[in-house]
């Protein structure tokens, strides 16, 4: 497809469903553990037996209040629940308990960063609702199975304003939400397991147009990369349609990650009318000021605050600080390493360089790192105190990764201490100069580039253990003679 971006602009809004990591369900005492045998975690309330009633799990209020604070939003009190009516076999009551008029979180914003700079995205609302069960079609010849384990699991649906204008911004926003929910420890944010799901509303219009174009909703895209691709595809498809003189149909579309396309979901013959009305089984909830304050007192440091602190406390660059602070586990690891190494800059480089490479190679999370923060800290402090060179440290790191040994043990066993004795280095240099009279001649007649050759020879002679700075200094003075 040709690049249309000059004439057109995209208008994107995201609806993100976050599964809250409570022990029990939103309105029942049943467990929310993932992966149990079908229907073993569905109690009378989840099964919607005649006569059962919902009782709100208070923990979700705390979680929602924290999210509201992190999104710079209002916390509504009273907040109230509503019934959203629709028939579906995995929706046991025939309605979903959700929020309509007074969502717990309303009117916030989130600052995101892309290559094009910073941007503020409005957050319309975040409301509590219950998840549905699952329909299973594979194992039942000509029939469907229903698993209600997930039914009633608490969700927070976070709805953005239609203020996102590119797939890059959409991903930055999504990643930022992901980072926040992980920091707040209100969800594991695992997109592959469905604990964070994203629906994208996309429309396009000619630049300068006031009126919004017809939008489509692309559902349940389950990774950051797919969100980016699905939105990009949808923008280009819509522009292509419009430029070809066609109209956009307001519809729900599914992203096909294999083909990298979106296609319409089997369209219903009539539009859904959810017939929302206030849930009479749950009274509106008044959130007392003291309760909100008590919850806010438990707020952790958030990614933006951490990033700023990393810059001011550790003199990291904005970029490094941002990368480390985006993931709470990574940020914690960095601080632990720094505590031992006393060298924030070097610690940051090692974590984002060598360590990240190894983690990526073996597809491990930072928490699963084979070199602990303490051990990495020790390694870095051995570079700092001059015991080993940076180059040797890389070899040692490889050994630590595979053997689990500590840095000092490896240095001792393999005699890898850096040579820092001027006399010893001088002896090696003298030998190298004596062995290479031709190169010496050429160097002295003006071929400066050969300096590197001599450094290499000295390092080789020292098996890499000579302190490079000392080698440089001494070599320079010897060659000038």
């Amino acid at each position, binding site marked *: 497809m040709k690049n249309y971006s000059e004439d057109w602009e995209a208008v994107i809004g995201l609806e993100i469903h976050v599964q809250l990591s409570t022990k029990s369900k939103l309105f029942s005492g049943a467990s929310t553990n993932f992966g149990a045998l079908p229907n073993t975690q569905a109690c009378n309330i989840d099964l*919607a037996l*005649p*006569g059962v009633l919902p009782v*709100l799990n208070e923990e979700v209020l705390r979680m929602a209040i924290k999210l509201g604070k992190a999104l710079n939003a209002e916390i509504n009190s009273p907040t109230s629940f509503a019934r959203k009516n629709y028939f579906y076999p995995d929706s046991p009551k025939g309605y979903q308990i959700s929020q309509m008029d007074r969502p717990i979180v309303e009117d916030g914003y989130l600052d995101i960063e892309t290559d094009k700079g910073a941007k503020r995205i409005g957050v319309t609302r975040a409301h509590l609702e219950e998840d549905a069960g699952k329909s299973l079609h594979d194992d039942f010849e000509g029939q469907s199975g229903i698993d209600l384990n997930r039914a009633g699991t608490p969700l927070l649906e976070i709805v953005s304003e239609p203020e996102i204008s590119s797939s890059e911004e959409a991903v930055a926003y999504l990643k930022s939400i992901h980072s926040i929910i992980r920091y707040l420890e209100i969800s594991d944010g695992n997109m592959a397991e469905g604990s964070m799901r994203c629906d994208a509303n996309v429309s396009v219009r000619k630049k300068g147009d006031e009126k919004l174009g017809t939008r489509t909703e692309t559902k349940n895209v389950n990774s950051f990369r797919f969100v980016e691709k699905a939105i990009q595809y949808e923008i280009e498809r819509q522009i292509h349609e419009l430029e070809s003189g066609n109209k956009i149909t307001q519809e729900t579309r599914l992203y096909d990650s294999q083909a990298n396309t979106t296609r319409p979901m089997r369209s219903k013959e009539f539009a859904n009318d959810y017939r*929302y009305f206030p849930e009479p089984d749950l009274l509106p909830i008044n959130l007392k000021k003291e309760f909100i304050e008590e919850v806010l007192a438990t707020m952790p440091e958030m990614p933006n605050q951490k990033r700023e602190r990393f810059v001011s406390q550790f003199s990291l660059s904005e970029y490094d600080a941002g990368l480390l602070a985006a993931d709470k586990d990574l940020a914690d690891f960095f601080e632990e390493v720094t505590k031992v190494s006393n060298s924030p800059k070097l610690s940051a480089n090692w974590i984002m360089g060598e360590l990240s490479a190894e983690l990526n190679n073996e597809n491990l999370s930072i928490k699963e790192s084979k070199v602990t923060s303490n051990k990495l800290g020790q390694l870095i402090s051995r570079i700092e105190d001059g015991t080993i060179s940076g180059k040797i440290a890389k070899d040692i790191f490889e050994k630590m990764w595979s053997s689990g040994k500590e840095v000092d043990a490896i240095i001792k066993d393999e005699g890898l201490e850096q040579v820092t004795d001027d006399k010893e280095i001088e002896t090696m240099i003298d030998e190298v100069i004596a062995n290479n009279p031709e190169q010496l001649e050429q160097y002295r007649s003006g071929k400066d580039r050969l300096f590197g050759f001599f450094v290499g020879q000295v390092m080789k002679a020292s098996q890499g253990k000579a302190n490079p700075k000392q080698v440089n200094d001494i070599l320079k003075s010897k060659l000038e003679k």
Partner: protein
Amino acid sequence: MDLHKLSLNQQLEGLKKGEFTSTELTSHYISRITEFDEQINSFITVTEDMALSQAKAADERYKNKTNLPLDGLPIAHKDIFCTKGVLTTCGSKMLSNFEAPYSSTVYEKLDKEGMVMLGKTNMDEFAMGSSNETSYFGPVKNPWNTEYVPGGSSGGSASCVSAELAPIATATDTGGSIRQPASLCGLTGIKPTYGRVSRYGMIAFASSLDQAGVVARSAEDAALILEAMSGHDPKDSTSLKLDKPNLSKELKSSIKGMKIGLPKEFFEKEMPSYIEQSIEEAIEVYKSLGAEVVEVSLSNINLSLPIYYIIAPAECSANLSRYDGVRYGYRCENPIDIEDLFMRTREEGFGAEVKRRILIGTYALSAGYYDAYYLKAQKCRQLVANDFSEAFKSVDVILSPTTPGTSFKSGEKTSDPIEMYLQDIFTIPANLAGLPGLSIPCGEHQGLPLGMQLVGNSLEESKLLQFAYSYQSNTDWHKKMPNI
């Protein structure tokens, strides 16, 4: 001994003193049910074996002096209360095969006090009806005259207590379903304040209006059981955080100096002269007991019926969505696909009145109609509640007829739903405002009983029972029982 002629307190005394056993008392009622229920069809399920084993356990406890507060007293439960291991049908084909896997809080509270369940009483399907003619298990007859209806929806409960097949029965009231059948069967029926009794395990019709209570032979009997049913339940978020009241003690206080309000809007309506006369006589009794009678105005009360017929169907349309044939209850034969399963299950499983209300409610909540119907009805509901609050600043109770007339013949109103809905014109306002209401017998016309209604301020059940008890201590209407 005619054990069924004893009041609940007398039966309890008899059990405590060992004059008879719970097994004897229970067997006595079971044999009356066996003998007479064919005529009135007041039970859907008779739990004879379970009752006798509960009675036996009660007798053991009496023997060991470990007896519970209401030990060994029999009771019938409306088939709207889930009872573990027992068929719980709500009067519908939809649940005609549903054996509840858990018990309602009401059942559990009474069970913990030692009460013996005789069986589950017939009712209008999903509590929708005022004549008990919509039950899948056949119509219930009025023991005073079996050509007449017992009222509804708690028709089975009223009918069986009136015929003395049970000494007392639980019931529920969404728009009058306790008070109207109590009135038509000559009983004392009380619907407490919304939230006084837990709704957990009570099959929902209209969640913001439904409330459990009892139909009894006297205010004293009603107080004894209602207080045992009451109290906060963490399983019901709308249940009030209050301990159970001591109604049995409080009802004996004097009403001297208290004020009765007569809503002029009710009395301006044309009513049969026999009702007017009975109510006037009742007012005279109260005056003679030292109560003062004043006129009050409930200016929005005429909106009650239309408000109710929007809110109740709206809530029921959602509450009854769970009956889809997927997990329990009736399921249609050989569904082609999921749509067919939903549609035919509901088409075949629900009766006409239930379908009518689901349709009305679905319509009232639809996009484009919500504001005009549901939202407006909720606002008007607040106006009705405000009228009551204003009135209760100057009076203690509000008195009116319970129903526009005595009972009517079976089939008489089934073809005209509006005529049927008018049965609840006096009772609905208390549900809209969440207030306690009570009906007691106060007269008779052509061999059929007639009731008056007392509505009290929020949480003032004891005051209502005081008024009922004083009246019953000075009159005999409540002592009249039908010959069956």
